[in-house]
């Protein structure tokens, strides 16, 4: 429709974004609306924490995230390490990971792996575990995730034994940490395309 196209043109770099991430114009528009909703101060960027109070700022507008056990991890995943702000382009790029996979998409070798391919999706999930970005999920990192998910209902001992068992199962090269390949292998039975995709309709 004509009106939406002109609105899309108002968004900076819309065309490049569309090409890079594969989102359609309608998607970009929708995401832009959402971005502006979250961006309370209208500064074109989303901030991680409010400096004085150290509370999650812009993303705090999404109330459900507070109830989410790994809400904080999700929020920090939007921000590159070290940075405290994220602009619209990065916002869209992160969300591009969750676009449904195009099965019949053929791409030449020169093109970069699309953001929403299975590997990229898994990589994104892996990076959420691997906070220190050393390429491996150590026991401590796994414990941290488990602690976040299971909360106060379990004892430390149980957490330890679960983490222990998980590492034993997945760790094939016996380095007491889970590398990306091992992570991928342990999830080979799960349909990642289906599990890590959401519809950006409406």
């Amino acid at each position: 429709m004509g009106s939406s196209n002109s609105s899309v043109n108002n968004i900076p770099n819309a065309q490049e974004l569309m090409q890079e991430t594969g989102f359609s114009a309608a998607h970009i528009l929708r995401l832009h609306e959402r971005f502006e909703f979250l961006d309370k101060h209208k500064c074109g960027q989303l901030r991680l924490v409010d400096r004085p109070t150290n509370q999650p700022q812009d993303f705090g507008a999404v109330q459900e995230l507070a109830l989410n056990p790994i809400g904080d991890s999700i929020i920090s995943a939007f921000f590159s390490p070290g940075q405290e702000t994220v602009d619209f382009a990065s916002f869209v790029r992160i969300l591009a990971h969750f676009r449904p996979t195009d099965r019949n998409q053929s791409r030449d070798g020169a093109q970069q792996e699309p953001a929403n391919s299975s590997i990229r999706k898994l990589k994104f999930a892996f990076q959420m575990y691997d906070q220190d970005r050393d390429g491996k999920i150590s026991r401590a990192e796994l414990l941290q995730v488990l602690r976040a998910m299971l909360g106060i209902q379990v004892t430390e001992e149980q957490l330890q034994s679960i983490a222990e068992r998980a590492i034993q199962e997945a760790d094939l090269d016996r380095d007491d940490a889970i590398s990306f390949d091992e992570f991928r292998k342990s999830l080979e039975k799960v349909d990642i395309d289906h599990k890590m995709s959401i519809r950006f309709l409406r």
Partner: protein
Amino acid sequence: MLSFNGLYRCDCLPDPAGICKSLPERGLLLLMVLVFLEGSVLPLGAASSPDVTHQANSDNHIVKEAGHNFTKKPFPVLSLDYHHIQAPFEISLWVLLASLMKLGFHLIPRLSGIVPESCLLIVVGLLVGGLIKLAGEQVPPVLDSRLFFLCLLPPIILDAGYFLPIRPFMENLGTILMFAVVGTLWNAFFVGGLLYAVCQIQPGNPSILHQLELLPCLLFGSIISAVDPVAVLAVFEEIHINELLHILVFGESLLNDAVTVVLYHLFEEYAGVGSVTVMDVFLGIISFLVVAVGGVLVGAIYGILAAFTSRFTSHTRVIEPLFVFVYSYMAYLSAEMFHLSGIMSLIACGAVMRPYVEANISHKSHTTIKYFLKMWSSVSETLIFIFLGVATVEGPHNWNWTFVTVTVILCLVARVIGVVGLTYVINKFRIVKLTTKDQFIVAYGGLRGAIAFSLGFLLNKDHFPLRDMFLTAIITVIFFTVFVQGMTIKPLVELLAVKKKQEAKRSINEEIHTQFLDHLLTGIEDICGHYGHHHWKDKLNRFNKKYVKKCLIAGERSKEPQLIAFYHKMEMKQAIELVESGGGVKLPSAMPSAVSMQNIQPKKLPPAKPAERALSNLPKGREEEIRKILRSNLQRTRQRLRSYNRHTLLADPYEDGLGDLLIKKQKMIELERKIKDMNNYLTVPAAPPDSPTMCRARLASDPQAYSMKPEPDSVPTIQVDLASPQSPDSVNLMDEFRRAEQQHEEDQGLMMKPPSGESGPKKPGEEDGSREHKLMRCLSDPGPSADEDEDEPFLP
């Protein structure tokens, strides 16, 4: 006869599969033949016996009345009174026949590989029907609709509903509903309408088809268009297709019941009147909503009642399975009472009650429920197919070439068009699209079955003069789909290389990561402001955790997170497996005889709070320790296995391990003998006789069963059970080996200390620490100190 042919054939041909027709198997086949004959002969006998019994009765009457002038008859020492027991006897005979048939098929593996069981059973039914007819007897109306709908169908549906994989079902619910509702409607109207058209244009002298009105045609269309869950289950079970396709076809067959019920009643009501107004159509739509939603509600209510009841059954474990069955059956009957969809109610009941009931009931009850459901559904299914065959032989037939062939063709065409068209629409909304292969399997898997026949049978002959023709056509379609489609679907699946079901043994990693991804996706959806699938699922889970679980689950289990429950279940299964595979005297023997592996309540939280559901014989704290030890043992054992293999060099680990294993086994056997001789209550019989079955049942048929993942480079046969009583020597060998490798291993659990002097008899009232300590020591090294243990009670 089938069985005899099989006998001869196997005698002549070479025996590739290695089945030898040994004496027992021939005996079994002979038995089946005898049952056949008995079944047909006895009804003949019944014809003559009533006279005898009547005479006897009237004689007795006279005797009682008169009192003084009675003629003395010789006292009947042995008399035949068949009528007395006729009904239950015949029922039992049928059930026995069905079960023997099932046995028989599996003795002929080649046959069961090619032909699906359902086909064979129909053939058997045809044979039996033929036999009975040959014997001149009246074939009993076996597929009587009441019998079918009230007795034969519910077990199958309950089995399906109770074990319904909820997750894929819910994820694909939209697709399933589209197929079930829109697909069935399309099929019904297409078939009915075109059939009417074809009948009208029938050439020739007043063809019998001309008198077929539109509404009866539509009624016939609605009867024939419903995909049948029994047939789908029977065929799909054997082809092991991937979960998505299975749940699509199966879900459709379950949910289209509501549509069928409404259409059937609608057309049946108005077929007499001859016209349907818009108002009726509108009422029909409302009726559909009422039937579907009402059915689900009724089922859900009964499911919640059952879950609530199971909360209080901790003291009467034996009748736990009964509640599951009775509540479900009542849900079905209640739904049928209001002409709601009984099938949907049954599914809803099973699916709703399952998570809560399983959290409440004991392990044995769980196994019982599973086995009873499988048994009943299996017998039901077998009986249904056999009866279908019998009814074919007997059923009033009216063969009309045009009608039948057109019906068959139209059914196929309608199905294909329906599936393709609907998939086109559905794929716009799906994340994972359905490919052409998927569509083909869905279309090809639309089998019709006994439900269609029973519905046709129910038709009133007065309203529908062409009922016999309908029945013939229905039977033909059923035969066609079951035989042709059923037999060819397996090779087609192979040919098309359709994704098969992965033997999923869910690992803890999968569970953790799946939950993590769930949370992640929910968060992303919230950020995008998109209230999608994950959002609602999350909301439901939260509601469930906060309110529902507290009501319906007894005690502490209500607060247990799912991951923990899963973890416990896995650990328990592995412990049982370890015990089973080792054989002989194992961990259980180290515990008081009252506690067998199976009695331990699985999945309990180990915090210090005393267990609320303690076993009757076991003091409360004990269970805790046992479980802790079990868990630590499992960890240690696994570690030991790994460490052992990790550092073995070029020498064949298998050989070394085998040597050790043999020594240990030797010592174990000696010890066992010694203990048996001592004749105290320490001698626990080696794993109770039903445990392998239970174990197999639990592990093999439970889709979530976890069995030990084979270590990548380990040898599968080394099952080192270091917790069993052994002499310290061989154990120390292992221990040193292990200690050399792992310096940093914690000093806990199974430290193989030689029996020290402290292990004298301890008083019962000691605190937990020393009790645990002693227990551990007892577990680790009762070798030579078995003599000591003889005097003291093992555990106070």
